[in-house]
Structure formats: structure tokens, C-alpha cells
């Protein structure tokens, strides 16, 4: 149970799971044997059922929430989280903070599995250090950025040193500079305890050379299973893997967009200082930004640098601490309604939605309706788009982002990647002149990623000003974005 007890094995025979409320099974016909101590990378397109399978293996799928077929054994028994052998990092970093203080939260898993209290603080501090979360023990867990929350969840499981480590896209929100380090921390922990390691991650190259085995999940059952070399370099499998959205090593990126000369400036800010809370610390100060038609601007930088805070302020969803965000006359003239004030913060919501669209970093936070299709219709309708036009846009986005099958599903029941696509699509459907998107591509497989990149390029070519916050260098390359690098409370144009 404590460190160095070695791994546990996983056995699935004809295993399947259908969520209640769905006609199709999320996973079906899984026949699989994972040996104790094996390091496995699980791949598959967004919505293929990877998270569902991980939850089932960790034993955290409530029996009432769906219909099971076949059998699944972990260490020879039905999965049971209370056995204390499994540590799970969920896909959504926002959902897994348990306690109010950072240090206490890291200790939570160790306490549950009966680790000696004398060694807990040292192990917790070591885990925090290996994931690069350099904050005081008493730091409130409610004041963490997206990437910091992901690091915290990872630290909690690393400190636990469980026999089976299950990680669902553990680096999706972590800044690229820190990814190799975090990755190494996971591998070191695995090496020390001999745990079985099961990871889902769309970016194959991060883990490919470190794992023993790659498993690819298809529509029904597994479509590939073997060593990284055998799976990734087998010419016979290339077609299958491409269809499953696997990022094949060496696959060419789409042609980068040729940037047009920028049009009229739409939104500008000068001497801007941004902060999350009215009385809290300032995240970034002295920002100067202007955003013109057809311009792609990217905010990049390490976790917690203040990118999301800046994005929310520019979207007029947070008040500026100092300085002001100003809409130019050009932006005032565009779209329906006629705001009189140049400060978007003082516009009524209907004027805002027709001009500036903001996509939050946590997709769940912005869903307001009960079906995927309604969610897409909401924006255009509020912005006064005619019915037929709205329906056409909705149908196109559903199709291109592979959500057609889910048009009637509740947005909150989607997979992580599906939620992200939906939240981005909602704002694209509205077609505001200024679009602000926080991490547009996280959690996407190669196919949906390409589609999101293509959609972004089309919008830019049509004159939309696109401001993104992103850790995804390839995406920024394809949309040919100018960069603004955040760090140490400041931001500079690169």
C-alpha cells in the first residue's frame, strides 16, 4: 500500500460500459491484460471512451450510472477504490481539489492509504517540488490557475505512491517548458514504486519513448496494442491510427496561414493591470495590447503567469485594476445594437455578445442550456442572427467538430475534448468581430485539432480578430499568431 509494494495487474474480458442516458456504449468489447509494473499509454480519438475506461479501472464509476458488460479485474478482484491501491488523476483539473490548503490537499491521498504521518510532510513537499508547484503550504487551493491545479492533482497522487497510477491527460494544461520535468517526475515515481502506470495523452511524443506499450482504443474494442515502435511504425496500422486521431510521429502539420496585412484596430488597452479578485494581488501590470481585424495574437507563458486573467479582462468579464480596455469606433459600428460607451465593461450583454466572444479555460463554466445543439444556437440567437442562418451554422459546426451524434446530449455529460470543442464552437457560431479563446486545443486528437485549426484560419481570413491563450506551439504556428510572452507580472511582445 505504501511505497515500493510493486504494481498490480489489470485484466479485462469483453468489458463494456454504457452511460445511462446514452444509446451507444462508451467502451465495448475490451479484452486486455496489463501486467504489474507495466507502463502503458492509452490512445484513441476524442470521445472514444478513454476516460470511461480509466474510471472503470480505478473503480470510481458508480454502478447506478450506467450498464456494464463483461468483466474487469484489478489485482485479481473487481476494482475497489477503498483498497487504497489506485491513484487517479482526473482529466478535469478543476474537479479534484479536495481541501482548502495546498499542503493538506497533497496529504489527502496519503492519509487515506494509511501512510505514517511522520513522513507525510516530507513526501508532500517532495511531490510539490517535482511537479514544480512552488507555493507556500498554506496557499489557498481556490486561488490556483488551471495549470497549477493540474500540477496539484498530480502531486497528490505521486505522494501517495499507489500500486496502480492512472493519469488522464496529466499534462494537457501544463506549460510546454515544464512538461518534460513533470513527465520525468511521473516516471521516477513509477520507477521507485514499481507501480503499474496507465496514461491517456493525445500528444504521443511526450510519452512514446518512455512507455512499454501503446494501446489504441477504437469504435469497438482495441484497434492496436503493442510496443511503441511496433504500433507507431507499422505501415499496415497507419490508416487505422490516423482514423483514430493519433498524432503520428513525423506527420506533417497543415500549411500555416499566410497572415494578411492587419485591418483596422478593434480593441485596445494601455497601461492595463489585471487581477482576479477585487482586493487580491495584481497578476500582470502595465499591459499594452491592440487587436486588429484579421490579426492573431497569442498570450503565452508559464502556468499562473496571468494569461487567463488578462483574457477575461479583455473580454470585459473582469474589471481592470488599472488602465482601461477600449473599443474603437470601428468595433462600436460593427454588429447589432449601438453601445455608446467605448468601455466594453459598460455594455449590456447583448451588445457584448455581438462584438466580443470569450471562451473560458474551463469549458463547463460557460454552458447554459440542456443540449449541445441549443448551446450552439444560443449565441447567434442572442446576437440577432436569422433562424435559417443560425441552423446552417450550427449544422456545419456540429459536423466539422464531430458532435452531430451528440446534438441532443447534455453538454455536461460530454467527454473532456468534446466539451472543449463545444465551448469553442459556441463562440465561433456567434461570429463576433473579436474572439478571445483560452486554450482552444487542449484535449483534442489530431483530427479534431486540425479541424479547430482550419476553423480558426477561416475566421481570421474573414477578418475576425483572434486572441488566444495557448500552450500549443503547433497551433500558434499554423494560425501564424504573433506572441506575447507573460512572466514576472509583465508581458512582452516576442
Amino acid at each position: 500500500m505504501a511505497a515500493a509494494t510493486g504494481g498490480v495487474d489489470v485484466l479485462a474480458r469483453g468489458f463494456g460500459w454504457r452511460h445511462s442516458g446514452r444509446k451507444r456504449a462508451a467502451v465495448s468489447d475490451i479484452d486486455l491484460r496489463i501486467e504489474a509494473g507495466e507502463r502503458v499509454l492509452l490512445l484513441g480519438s476524442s470521445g472514444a471512451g478513454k476516460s470511461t475506461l480509466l474510471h472503470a479501472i480505478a473503480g470510481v464509476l458508480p454502478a447506478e450510472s450506467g450498464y456494464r458488460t463483461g468483466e474487469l479485474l484489478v489485482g485479481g478482484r473487481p476494482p475497489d477504490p477503498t483498497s487504497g491501491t489506485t491513484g487517479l488523476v482526473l482529466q478535469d483539473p478543476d474537479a479534484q481539489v479536495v481541501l482548502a490548503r495546498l499542503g493538506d490537499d497533497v496529504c489527502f491521498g496519503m492519509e487515506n492509504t494509511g501512510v505514517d504521518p511522520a513522513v507525510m510532510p516530507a513526501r508532500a513537499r517532495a511531490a510539490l517540488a517535482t511537479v514544480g508547484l512552488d507555493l507556500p503550504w498554506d496557499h489557498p487551493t481556490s486561488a490556483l490557475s488551471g495549470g497549477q491545479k493540474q500540477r496539484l492533482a498530480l502531486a497528490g497522487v505521486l505522494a501517495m505512491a499507489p500500486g496502480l497510477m492512472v493519469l488522464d491527460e496529466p499534462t494537457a494544461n501544463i506549460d510546454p517548458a515544464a512538461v518534460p520535468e513533470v513527465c520525468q517526475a511521473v516516471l521516477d515515481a513509477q520507477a521507485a514504486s514499481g507501480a503499474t502506470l496507465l496514461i491517456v495523452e493525445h500528444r504521443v511524443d511526450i510519452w512514446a519513448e518512455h512507455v512499454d506499450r501503446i494501446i489504441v482504443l477504437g469504435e469497438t474494442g482495441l484497434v492496436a496494442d503493442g510496443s511503441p515502435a511496433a504500433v507507431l511504425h507499422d505501415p499496415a496500422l497507419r490508416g487505422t491510427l490516423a482514423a483514430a486521431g493519433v498524432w503520428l510521429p513525423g506527420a506533417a502539420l497543415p500549411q500555416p496561414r499566410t497572415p494578411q496585412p492587419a485591418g483596422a484596430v478593434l480593441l485596445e488597452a494601455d497601461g492595463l493591470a489585471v487581477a482576479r479578485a477585487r482586493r487580491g494581488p495584481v497578476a500582470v501590470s502595465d499591459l499594452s495590447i491592440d487587436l486588429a481585424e484579421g490579426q492573431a495574437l497569442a498570450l503565452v507563458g508559464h502556468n499562473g503567469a496571468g494569461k487567463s486573467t488578462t483574457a477575461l479582462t479583455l473580454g470585459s468579464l473582469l474589471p481592470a485594476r488599472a488602465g482601461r480596455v477600449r473599443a474603437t469606433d470601428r468595433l462600436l459600428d460593427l454588429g447589432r445594437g449601438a453601445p455608446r460607451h467605448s468601455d466594453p465593461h459598460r455594455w449590456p450583454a447583448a451588445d457584448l455578445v455581438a462584438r466580443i466572444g470569450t471562451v473560458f479555460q474551463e469549458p463547463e463554466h460557460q454552458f447554459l442550456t440542456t443540449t449541445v445543439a441549443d448551446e450552439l444556437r444560443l449565441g447567434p440567437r442572442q446576437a440577432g442572427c436569422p433562424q435559417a442562418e443560425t441552423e446552417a451554422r450550427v449544422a456545419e459546426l456540429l459536423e466539422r467538430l464531430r458532435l452531430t451524434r451528440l446534438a441532443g446530449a447534455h453538454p455536461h455529460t460530454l467527454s473532456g475534448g468534446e466539451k472543449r470543442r463545444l465551448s469553442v464552437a459556441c463562440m465561433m457560431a456567434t461570429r463576433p468581430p473579436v474572439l478571445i479563446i483560452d486554450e482552444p486545443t487542449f484535449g483534442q486528437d489530431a483530427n479534431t485539432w486540425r479541424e479547430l485549426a482550419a476553423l480558426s484560419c477561416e475566421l481570421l481570413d474573414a477578418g475576425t480578430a483572434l486572441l488566444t491563450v495557448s500552450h500549443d506551439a503547433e497551433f500558434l504556428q499554423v494560425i501564424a499568431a504573433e506572441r506575447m510572452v507573460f512572466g514576472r507580472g509583465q508581458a512582452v511582445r516576442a
Partner: protein
Amino acid sequence: MSDVQTRHTDSEPNPTPAGVPATMRWRVVDIVVASVLAVAIGIVFWAWSNSWETISAPFQALYPPTKGLLTGVWVLGGVLGGLIIRKPGAALYVEVLAAIVSAVPGNYFGLMVIVSGLIQGFGAELIFAALRYRRYTLIATLLAGLGAGLSLAIGENILYNAAWTFEHKALYTVFAGISGMVLAGLVSWFALKAIARTGALGAFASGRSAREV
């Protein structure tokens, strides 16, 4: 082992009648969601206690025992908690925790809210227990609301309205019973339907969604 296998090849994990959980034991998700629900209702209680004086002023001026007509809100936690979680003790737990949460920002019931919470949760719990935690129909819910309303009134009569004469206490009890039935019972019933429709109760026997996409 063979026993385990047969249980786990079962594709219908819920052999009990619709709406009744497979086990009476509390799962982690039961405990956590009951707690979260209690916190949310605690916030409602707090808001209600803050506006209580304003809302109840006309009733107070007219005839104070008619305030009983408003007390149904105070027993919402027990009824809704019991109805959603469907485990022994759920009504009591949710009501007590909600009462405690409502006292945190300060209200004039002080620590006595814990006692009130116990009394009020007990009324709803008693009804669910009498139905052996197996019936969650509209009638059962209304009864739970009634039970909670009556026990609230009895508790209040002893603790706060002690100085009232018997007729006033009796009338207050009647009003509180009606209020519990409507404001806690009926409201919980519709709240459950509305919440279940969003699919948020997928993990509970109370909320298996019928619509499939």
C-alpha cells in the same frame, strides 16, 4: 471468485425496483453529494433567515402563528435530501448540515440551529423510514414534508414560542404542517424532476434519465 464473476458479468447493475438504490449502504458519492446538497441548501437557509423578518412581517402583524405558513422552507433540506439520496439517515444528515452551514455567517438562532436541524430532519426521516426507504412517490414526498413541518412546529413551540398559549401553538402547528407539505414536499418533488432532467443525478437511483441520445 465465481460469485464475484457472476455479479460482475451482470449487465443490469440495478436489480432492485426502479428508483430504489441497489444497496442501503452509503457510497462515497452519496456522502459527498449529500454534503454538497446540504451546503447549497444551507445557503438558501441563510438567505431565507436574512430576509425572514421582512417576509414574515405582514404575517407577524396579522396574526403571528400564521408565520407557520412560511416555515416549510426550513425543512426543505430533509425532504429534498431524503428524496435524492435515498439512504437511511439522508434526510437527517442533509437537514442538520444545512442548518449548521446557515449559521456560519451568523443568524439569530445561534448554535441552536443544530438542535432545530435535528428536530426538523427527524420529521422527514421518520416518514422515509416508515416507508422502509423504498417508496419515493409524490404522496410519500408530501408526507415527508408534512412530517418535517409538524416536527418543526413542535420544536419551535417548546424552544421559541414557549410563552404562547395553547390555541396559538396548535394553530401554528397546523400552519407549519401545511407549509411543510407544500414548500418542502411539493417543491422537492418538482425540484427532483427538474434536476433529474439535466442528467446530473446519473449516479443515483433517483435520477436515472429516461431519455437516451
